[in-house]
């Protein structure tokens, strides 16, 4: 084992890990909001809005994130739209995960029995308040586990940003692999860092699920 090599390059790896986390947070924020829009449109009263949202979801789900990133980063400049590699990666991941997270939200909302809404209305709540105070809090608890799974997928997907040379963890490992004769060490270390990030996220989620349990009605 060539530990010295890893230790010498620890700063590079740590910077890469920080960039990975930044990409994931950016994509998560974008997709949390975008997912709300998708869910809202998918449940809209107006059929055209529903169709647009469904089309968006299908396209996002059935094409690879790598190709989506390439379209934004290599394709759009031919139309005069220029974005940094980081922005392209975050935007592409936000868009794709908006589709997934939108479906998660929607499933969470429809899983709540219509009687809950009725009970809230019967108490004199306006529809908006019933949604905010009664329906969303229950739905959020139910979407916590699938949302957590999606976040772990997002973290892993950030590795694709290395294909457009964003200096994240996978990119850092490629640099080290090119530079050295210590492939296993590099490979193991990078895998462990990804595992640690995923495990950390999973732990936080378990905590949140324990704090906000789904209760039967």
């Amino acid at each position, binding site marked *: 084992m060539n530990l010295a090599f890893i230790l010498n390059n620890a700063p590079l790896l740590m910077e890469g890990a920080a960039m990975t986390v930044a990409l994931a947070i950016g994509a998560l924020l974008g997709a949390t909001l975008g997912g709300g829009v998708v869910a809202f449109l998918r449940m809209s009263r107006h059929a055209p809005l529903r169709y647009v949202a469904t089309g968006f979801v299908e396209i996002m789900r059935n094409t690879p994130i790598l190709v989506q990133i390439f379209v934004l980063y290599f394709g759009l400049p031919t139309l005069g739209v220029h974005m940094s590699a980081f922005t392209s990666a975050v935007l592409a991941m936000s868009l794709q995960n908006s589709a997934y997270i939108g479906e998660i939200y929607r499933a969470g909302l429809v899983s709540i029995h219509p*009687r*809950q809404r*009725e*009970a*809230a*209305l*019967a*108490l*004199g*709540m*306006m*529809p908006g*308040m019933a949604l905010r*105070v*009664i329906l969303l*809090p*229950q739905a959020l*608890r139910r979407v916590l586990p699938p949302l957590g799974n999606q976040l772990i997928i997002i973290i892993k997907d950030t590795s694709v940003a290395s294909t457009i040379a964003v200096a994240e963890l996978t990119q850092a490992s490629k640099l080290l692999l090119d530079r050295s004769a210590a492939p296993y060490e590099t490979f193991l270390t990078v895998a462990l860092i990804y595992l640690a990030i995923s495990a950390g996220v999973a732990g936080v989620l378990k905590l949140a699920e324990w704090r906000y349990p789904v*209760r*039967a*009605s």
Partner: protein
Amino acid sequence: MSDLTSPATSEPLVVIDRVGKSFGAVDVLKEVSLTVAAGDVLSLIGPSGSGKTTLLRCVNYLETYERGLITIAGETVGIEPLPDGRRRRKSDRQIAALRAQVGMVFQHYNLFPHLDVLENLTVAPCRVHGEAPGPVRERALALLEQVGLADKRHRYPSELSGGQQQRVAIARALTMQPRLLLLDEVTSALDPELVGEVLDVITSLAADGITMMIVTHEMAFAREVSTSVAFMADGRLIESGAPEAIFEAPDHERLRSFMQRYRAGNQL
């Protein structure tokens, strides 16, 4: 004599005037007319599918109705009749304001599972009326005391029995201090041994003078607790009157055979 307690000369609290409703091509309510005075306890009885639930849901506008008019304390429910004869749906705000004055208890309790018992009671008064939490809490605790569940105030609905959940649901409706309480087959989903505790609570509310409209299949209870009874069949109001008259001297053949079937069923 105090004017506050003598509504005898004034308008009834609830006036249901020739109300009709259809689900698609099916008329489920046909020209139903009824009045309920303040302090009355009206029981709605009749075979399953006769429109009792639908009528009750129209009273707080959980269902809309196409013909006739319902008024509560002089205010029309859900619908504004225009001078030219057309009908306009009231605003969400107006409808919510009316519902805030009408409590409803459902067959399946419909408690909010993510809130504990006390929060189930306080959420609407605090959010809808914007009342201060302190007094609402006190009122809620008093009501929990009345339904015998003060010790369960920090439990969640899923930790309670069906009978306990239904008593919480009644207390939740009352915490809003409604002028009228609607109860739709509130014991039908309960195990037989839990029915009594819920009926006892309702009986005590009747004694307190709370105005109620009750859909029920518990005939002995209806007879004991009601000031008047209405019998529905096929979306029509067939007969209504004092409990003694309805149960002992029914005029209509439909009601007689309904009673006969009920008694036969009960003796088996």
